[in-house]
């Protein structure tokens, strides 16, 4: 099944019949089996699925962190597939933002330096108005001079979010950004991500296995066994949970 585009907006990221195979022979694992999907500009999309369903793999392939076995990936109008290392580096630097589950920050740099790092690496200056907006939205103004070790886990993730946002990338990929946080800090981070989409038109693709987190998104794509199996627009925690239960059922029968 192929996820369809809800509105006729141009896609910020697109996967076209993407296959990903790890290893060979006995040890072969097919992580993605012909995934095609589009992630529209200005929307917050969640990728849901049980553990091992290929969520992270899909995200890595979309973001140019990993190569695909077959198929093509595009970010904006750039074809990611086939880029060499420096092309990929440039793509990541200029078009993509990342928020990982943990270890997002360089311990030697202050929060502010971490936030500005992608820009300074690229040799660009931050737009001061946008920088101020981001800092205020994340609510970190008092903590800018702190080092990661002096920040709580939630604060660290917010710094990571600010870092991803400040460069205004084509798309931000977040892999379980709240996976390591308590529910309150998690909610803060998710609210912040949703606001940046609603108010500033940022595109975000978030991988999660938590229905509550997925409910913050505009759209949820369900992955099972390396394939897109379902989709929800304007999800709620309940509808996501229901869909997940339905997806789980045949797997349990299979076992």
């Amino acid at each position, binding site marked *: 099944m192929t996820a369809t585009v809800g509105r006729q907006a141009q896609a910020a990221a697109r996967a076209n019949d993407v296959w990903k195979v790890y290893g060979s022979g006995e040890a072969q694992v097919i992580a993605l089996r012909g995934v095609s999907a589009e992630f529209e500009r200005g929307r917050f999309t969640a990728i849901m699925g049980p553990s091992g369903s290929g969520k992270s793999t899909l995200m*890595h392939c979309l973001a140019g*962190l*990993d190569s695909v076995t077959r198929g093509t990936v595009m970010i904006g109008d750039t074809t990611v597939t086939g880029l060499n290392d420096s092309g990929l*580096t440039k793509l990541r630097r200029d078009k993509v933002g990342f928020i990982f589950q943990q*270890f997002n920050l*360089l311990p*030697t740099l202050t929060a502010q330096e971490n936030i500005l790092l992608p820009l300074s690496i*690229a040799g660009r200056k931050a737009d001061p108005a946008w920088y101020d907006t981001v800092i205020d939205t994340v609510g970190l103004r008092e903590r800018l001079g702190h080092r990661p*070790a002096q920040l709580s886990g939630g604060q660290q993730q917010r710094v990571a979010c600010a870092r991803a946002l400040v460069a205004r990338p084509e798309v931000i990929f977040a892999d379980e950004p709240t996976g390591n946080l308590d529910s309150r800090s998690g909610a803060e981070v998710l609210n912040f991500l949703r606001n940046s989409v609603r108010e500033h038109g940022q595109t975000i693709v978030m991988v999660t296995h938590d229905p509550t987190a997925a409910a913050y998104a505009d759209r949820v794509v369900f992955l099972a066994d390396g394939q897109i199996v379902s989709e929800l627009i304007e999800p709620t925690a309940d509808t996501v949970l229901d869909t997940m239960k339905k997806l789980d059922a045949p797997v349990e029968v299979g076992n």
Partner: protein
Amino acid sequence: MLRATLKSLLARKLRLLLSGLAVVLGVMFVSGAFVLTDTLGRSFDAVFADAYAEVDVNVAAKPKVELSETEGEQVAAPVPASLVERVKAVPGAADVQGVVAADGARLIGANGKVVTSFGPPQLGENWLGESDLVKLREGREPRADDEIVVNAALAKAANVKVGDRVGVLTLAPKKEFTLVGVFGYSGGRDSVGGANEVAFTTGVAQQLMLGKPDVFSNISARAADGTTPEALRDEVSRAVGGGYDVKTGEQLADDASAGLKEGLSFFNKILLGFAAVALLVGTFLILNTFSIIVAQRTRELALMRAIGASGRQVIGSVVLEAVAVGLIASVLGLAAGIGVGALLAYLFGKLAGGLSLAGLGVPPAAVIGAFAVGLVITVVAALLPALRAARIPPIAAMQDVATPDRPLTKVTVGGAVVTTIGAVLLFLGLSGNAGGNTLATILGGVLFAFIGVALLTPVISRPVVALLGAIFSWSVPGKLGRLNSGRNPRRTAITAAALMVGIALVTGVTVILDSAKGSISALAEDTIKAELVISGSASGPRPPSFDPAVLDKTAAIPGVQLVDGEYGDMATVGGERTWVAASSNVAALERIFGAKATAGDISRLAPDQMLLSSDTAKARNLSVGSTVPVQLSRGEARTYTVSGIYESSQLTNPVVLPPQAAADFAIPQPIQGFVQLAPGTSVGAVQPQVERLLADSPEVSVADRAAFIKQQTSQLDTPLRMIQILLALAIVIAVLGIINTLALSVLERTRELGLLRAIGLRRAQTMRMITVEAVVISIFGALLGVVVGTGLGAAVVRALKDEGITDLVLPWGQMVTFLVLAAIIGVVAAVLPAIRAARINVLGAIAHD
């Protein structure tokens, strides 16, 4: 526990290999030194056994002045020819021969230059005919007084052939001879032990090599059948009476060899000194590696504690790792040392004119030294990290290991205490208050100073690294690199300290030698009032000399005001071995060397009078009018009366004798000549005339004063280069340390590097970041080294003030070179770790646990 240790050891092969390499190099030095000296020692044994193979008993006179190997060439006293008959009369003595064999027969080669020798003697002998050992290869024996034969090695070196007219310098100035034959030794050898030999007819040999007719250097005899050498020795000894040394050939070979071995053991000690430096640096390196490994294994070790391992077991596991590394490093170091020892022995043999080497020997000392040093150093260095590992609480297994920034107070206080101890020891040693242990006290002081400064380095590193790093902060990778280098002050500090040691020593030695050079040339420039100087640069133990007739002829050149020829000899003055000089023109002391009389008259000297420097007079408690017995290298002891005392300076000799005394010197020819010109005389006009006069004295040349001073002070350049080369090894080890630290840091920061790459850091930028980190560390180390080295050097220079090193000369150029070198070292050291960092797989790094 053992299994777990071995497994973790295998998992860390690479990092341990790097730190092990430091031990390997140190051990290599230690075992190499022993192998070299053992091999050379046995080679010398063989050479002398060979040289005296045809001698059963040897009779020689006791030397007039006994010198040790390091004091110079000892001159054997001659035995009268009449003694030969007495030995012949001894029953059981066969083949009794009067032998002339003395060092100092210098052949002038086809290129007009004297054939030089580093070490092996240049023997002038009487031709004793062919034997089992000696065979003429070409031509015939010398029959007339102007005929000589030479050994094949010398003929080759001089590029001369039978029939050539060749010049030979001996006690007498240059004389021409016809080369009538070339001889070699059994077994196709060109020489015994690389010696150059010129054989004259007996009368000529006596005159030219011993200075008088009817004397021999020694008498050799063979024991007739049925007589043992020992029995014959005792018989001969009785026959010749006291006053002579009668020895068997075996004893003679042992004595000769023992003399050389004394020199070798000195050499050995120097090599071991450098090994110690290398090992000190290696210790820092190992300490660092194990610290990092323990830090990286914190979780693992904590888990072990959590599941019941005792603190002692944790220590045991770290120490066991150290033992394994130490053992492997010792074995490799020993193997490398044997190789290096063999190579050096080979080079030495070549340099010494073809010394045929005895088989390579690996003495027990090399093996014991290798393992003791390798194991002990490694285990000692790993001990601190092991103790720290034992203090890891089990809870650390559950916590996130943000390497806690341990306070530096303890280290700093410790460093201050150790540095102070070092400074006190240095002060005691340098001020001469250390009793009989001056050298040990100074070395201990230097060692403590190094360790103390190394302990202080973490504190110093913060501001200095921040400052240094500021230079690189203009780019993002530079800034990240700078931050990384300041990240773990201890690690940065030890890595830098390792580099410090080598650079500090080189800087210190350079400061001392440059100051010595500067002081001497300043003094010489201020005092020596001679426009031209005749001298040669020594190419072996024997100083070059020239024909004394040149002095008078030079004095006759128009415009020449004063000429002085300087002679020198190691003599026994009042029972003490002392360097004595004789001046062809005593007035030169005041007029050329600016000496000031403190007592008596120093402007003239009667044949039985002597002058003393004020230091000598004071030390010996002598004054004008005192009488002093003097035994020179030749002749009988004579008593001289002190007629004047002059103020000591760097340019004056302890004792000055009248020119007549020079005839009894080991080298009865002037070794330096000073020419003072009348005001207004052109140096350029006189110099070529003197040069012409020196045509028959090819060992020396005439130079203007500036060139002479430069030539004199440049003699210090050779030891300086040698020390620099040997200390370069310590620097190489320090470079390994930087590579090691960086490689470990890169490993430790895999995830960070992945993150940086994920958010867009290019490969080249990644490499630049690592390079900046390395450069900051190495420049920091070099800076420390330059500062500490200058301090040490300046302290020594101060202490040597009374020895005439009055000017402190700081080698700014060298210091800048070291800093630039350090930057290059940093770049080089960063290459591998940087490539490794740039190659990190982004995805793998992010998933890295």
